[in-house]
């Protein structure tokens, strides 16, 4: 057998033993073993180890003590036998041995006793116990005789241990000397003197002590003791188990509140127990829950409010409108939605700067809040746009409220740097009468009415009229409809790609596919200009197909095989089951690895989408594609929908990233989103990174990927490498 085979065999056996040990409850990696069982098993194991070790030590020590004592005893018995044997040596009469035997019978340990003649060969007398009947009779060896008689006149007692069959015998031997003083009459006798004495060897004594019976008795005692110890040990284990269970009960009681906490129930409170350590855990948990709840509330506040005006933000407002839609549906009451746009705000911003503009917005927010009721909702929608939800009002009352706002604004003067400005606004009103329209549609209605008010000369209000508005919209869209149809027909769309950089590996993870439309020669129309119209005229799915087809065709030529494509999808496309099926087939045809395809879906679109869109998203996820939630600002998290949506990554809302350096609130939000994603096991993308400071900040906050003009501008595919290579 070669060394390798031997090594392999040993390794295999070791692995097998390891697996067997893993099956034992104590070493099992299953996490359903209770602490009490584990502790008791461990104690049992240690108890057994300690017990066997103690037993071994006890056996060894007691055996040694018995052996030494018996050897000493054997020496004493030899001396006694020496004295008893005097008449035997004097008379040389074997009958004397009977008396000696009678005396020796009282020593049960003495196996045999023999008296030899001066040569150590001739047996003068012998005694054997009943047990020693079979003990063979061996005369002393020449070596033994020589050794014992070497020191003349001295009774040297030699002791050794021998084994006769199953029995261990301690064998003691000694010479029998007689001595006399040399000087006649002992006239110069000195008791302590050194005058020599004559010595004469008259025989030898051999005595055997049965050592086995002591060992047997010891084994019996240990066995009895072990039984008793086992009973006591079992009793103690049982009592220990009960005690341990009692101690661990407070810990068990933590299970339910912890499970509720894991499910997100922040109302849970952990009861304090009588055990100090567990009470400390309970206190710590309660503190943690309280802190998390507070932080959660703070995050909600941050997520739901505009950091500048402290008005509710777009997400919260959208939720409120959704809620209002349900109320309206239930109560048959009507409510109104105002879209307010400040007139000439841009001029103030440009002349006095952004800070002045911000201060103006704050004051306007206060005016709006002062005019509406407490339960009406005022929100800043971005820039100088505000929206107001006025609940439980009819058209007339809504107009009265809007007029009130207009009057307040007319009376308001904004003074800054010694200049005074009269601030006016345009208000578009749409009535919420049923759940027929979505929030976006209602907002668009109010927005359209507001635009109409602006067109009518500003500082006025317009009530949304569907017929009038549609007519206006048709006028605006009719051009785009034709352009979109022509662009699809003539392939007048252009795709640009912008890298999304993995901040850890510094490698491109995805290229975001950005759509452009070719306008006049040399003109590229951005998507914001035509995607709305595409949606309204039902081109969105077709445009999506065009984008995906063309994007996938470029994948084959993509130099970076590890990077994927990130494609924007509308909610309408997701709702189209045929589109989803077509996409699945296309992925198979092109044999692209699905994980290299990421689809970005607007968080807002998901919020307002129907169930079909969610199913489409799940189907895409099922294909193995990556889902990125675009424009994320914790809106879904706050609405509790986040856990139902299959997504892999979050792209942080544009405004949060662009305002990162200026606002601590933005920093906190971005940091919280990164932490949220990390906890959920998702990755994050910070888009619109415009400078190095923002890049380092998002990196510091734990954002995984970044995208923006600072890193790379969108380019056609051919120019990608060169562009990206310019960045370190």
């Amino acid at each position, binding site marked *: 057998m070669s060394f390798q085979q031997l090594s392999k065999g040993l390794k295999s056996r070791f692995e097998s033993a390891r697996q067997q040990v893993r099956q034992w409850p104590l070493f099992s990696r299953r996490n359903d073993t209770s602490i009490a069982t584990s502790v008791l098993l461990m104690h049992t194991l240690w108890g057994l180890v300690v017990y066997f070790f103690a037993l071994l030590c006890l056996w060894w020590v007691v055996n040694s003590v018995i052996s030494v004592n018996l050897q000493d005893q054997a020496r004493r018995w030899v001396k006694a036998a020496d004295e008893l044997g*005097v008449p035997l040596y004097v008379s040389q009469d074997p009958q004397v041995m009977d008396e000696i035997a009678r005396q020796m019978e009282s020593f049960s340990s003495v196996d045999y006793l023999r008296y030899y003649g001066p040569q150590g060969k001739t047996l003068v007398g012998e005694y054997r116990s009943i047990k020693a009947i079979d003990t063979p009779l061996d005369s002393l060896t020449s070596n033994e005789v020589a050794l014992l008689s070497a020191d003349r006149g001295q009774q040297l007692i030699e002791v050794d241990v021998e084994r006769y069959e199953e029995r261990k015998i301690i064998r003691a031997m000694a010479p029998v000397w007689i001595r006399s003083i040399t000087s006649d009459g002992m006239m110069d006798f000195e008791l302590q003197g050194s005058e020599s004495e004559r010595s004469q060897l008259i025989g030898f004594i051999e005595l055997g002590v049965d050592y086995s019976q002591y060992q047997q008795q010891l084994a019996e005692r240990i066995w009895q003791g072990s039984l008793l110890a086992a009973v006591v040990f079992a009793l103690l284990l049982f009592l220990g188990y009960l005690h341990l269970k009692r101690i661990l009960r407070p810990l068990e009681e933590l299970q339910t509140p912890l499970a509720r906490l894991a499910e997100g129930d922040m109302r849970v409170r952990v009861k304090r127990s009588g055990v100090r350590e567990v009470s400390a855990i309970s206190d710590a948990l309660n503190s943690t829950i309280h802190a998390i709840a507070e932080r959660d509330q703070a995050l909600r506040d941050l997520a739901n409010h505009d950091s500048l005006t402290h008005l509710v933000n777009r997400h919260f407002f959208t939720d409120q409108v959704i809620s209002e839609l349900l109320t309206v549906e239930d109560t048959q009451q009507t409510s109104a939605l105002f879209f307010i746009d400040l007139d000439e705000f841009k001029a103030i911003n440009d002349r006095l700067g952004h800070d002045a503009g911000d201060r103006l917005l704050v004051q306007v927010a206060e005016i709006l809040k002062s005019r509406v009721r407490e339960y009406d909702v005022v929100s800043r929608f971005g820039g100088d746009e505000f929206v107001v939800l006025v609940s439980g009002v009819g058209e007339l009352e809504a107009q009265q409220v809007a007029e009130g706002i207009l009057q307040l604004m007319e009376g308001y003067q904004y003074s800054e740097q010694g200049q005074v400005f009269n601030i006016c606004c345009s208000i578009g009103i749409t009535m919420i009468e049923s759940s027929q329209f979505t929030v976006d549609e209602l907002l668009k209605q109010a927005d359209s009415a507001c635009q109409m008010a602006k067109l009518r000369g500003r500082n006025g209000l317009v009530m949304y009229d569907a017929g009038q508005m549609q007519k206006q919209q048709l006028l605006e869209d009719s051009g785009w409809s034709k352009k979109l149809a022509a662009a699809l027909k003539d392939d007048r769309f252009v795709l640009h790609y912008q890298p999304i950089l993995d901040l850890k590996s510094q490698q491109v993870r995805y290229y975001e596919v950005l759509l452009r439309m070719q306008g006049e020669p040399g003109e590229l129309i951005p998507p914001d200009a035509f995607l709305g119209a595409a949606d309204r005229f039902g081109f969105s799915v077709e445009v999506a197909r065009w984008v995906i087809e063309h994007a996938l065709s470029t994948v084959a030529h993509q130099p970076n095989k590890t990077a994927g494509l990130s494609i924007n999808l509308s909610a309408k496309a997701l709702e189209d089951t045929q589109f989803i099926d077509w996409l699945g087939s296309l992925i198979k045809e092109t044999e692209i690895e699905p994980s290299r395809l990421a689809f970005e879906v607007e968080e807002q679109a998901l919020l307002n989408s129907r169930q079909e869109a969610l199913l489409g998203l799940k189907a895409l996820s099922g294909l193995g594609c990556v889902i990125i939630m675009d424009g994320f600002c914790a809106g879904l998290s706050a609405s509790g929908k986040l856990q139902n949506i299959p997504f892999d990554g979050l792209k942080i809302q544009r405004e949060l990233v662009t305002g990162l350096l200026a606002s601590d609130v933005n920093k906190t939000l971005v940091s919280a989103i990164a932490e949220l994603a990390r906890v959920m096991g998702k990755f994050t993308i910070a888009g619109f990174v415009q400078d190095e400071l923002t890049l380092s900040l998002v990196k510091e906050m734990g954002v995984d990927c970044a995208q923006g003009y600072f890193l790379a501008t969108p380019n056609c595919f051919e120019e990608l490498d060169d562009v990206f290579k310019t960045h370190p």
Partner: protein
Amino acid sequence: MMGHLAEKWLFIGLCGVLSACSQHRQIVYQPQQSPASSAQAERPVEPSLKLAVITTGDDVMYQSVAKYLLDHSADSELFNIKNGQRSAAVASVVGRDEYDRVAAIGLPAARLASEMRQKRVVFSKVFNHSPALELSANLQCVSLLPSPQQVFQRWRELSPTLNRVAVITGAGHDHLVAVIKEAGEAWGIHVQAFTVRNDKELVYVSKNLPHSIQGQWLMPDNRVTSRDALRELMGHAVRVGRQVVAFDDSLLEIGALASVTTTDRSIAKAQQRALANHREIKMHFPESFAFKVSDKAKSRLGLTRKRQRE
């Protein structure tokens, strides 16, 4: 005669001083009429010729006896055979008719003298004379032991209830044993004699003596004695509370009740007297001896109470 008495008193005085220095009480006994000795009449010696004093070697204890004899005999001559050397020459000279008495000191000298059958020989400083020397009217000896009569007298004084004593010796001491028994009987003490062959047997017999035996008189029989045997014997005697009268003072340290020792001078005097007065006794005993008592042993054996009461 006056000089003799002065010497005697001087000796007693010296012993007294010595006893004061010793931790044991020592009593030197003066010659006195013992119950047995009164029965034997001394027969004056006929006008003598010369006394031959044969000694063995230059041993001080032999020489001191020889000197005493020479000093106290008008016509005497000293011969030293020095362990067998010059034995024939000495035998030839002493064998002449001009010497009618021979004082032999030590066993070799005694053996030489015993062959001179025509002369009256008294030897001393020999314990184990048998079987080489068979005592007779012309071959007498001075025992190393003091008079048993006197010993028993002292012992009885010390232990009034003493009535059974053992004497253990080697072979060949029948005469001595008989004398001791007789002396014991005179004082109402039954002496039981045992003969042993070696030191082991001495110890064995001592340990197995009947409980009725209250005391043991240790004989200086070197043939059956070893130091270890003596220690063991004494140890046993102490354990069983047996009174032991020993032959050497050193045994008082290990439990003996008393020791009886004779001096060279007392032996010499006894020898001189035996040579001067012919008596039909085979064994003579020195009339003065030291009887040292161990206070510790006395106390242990409960022999002080009666005196205290008295």
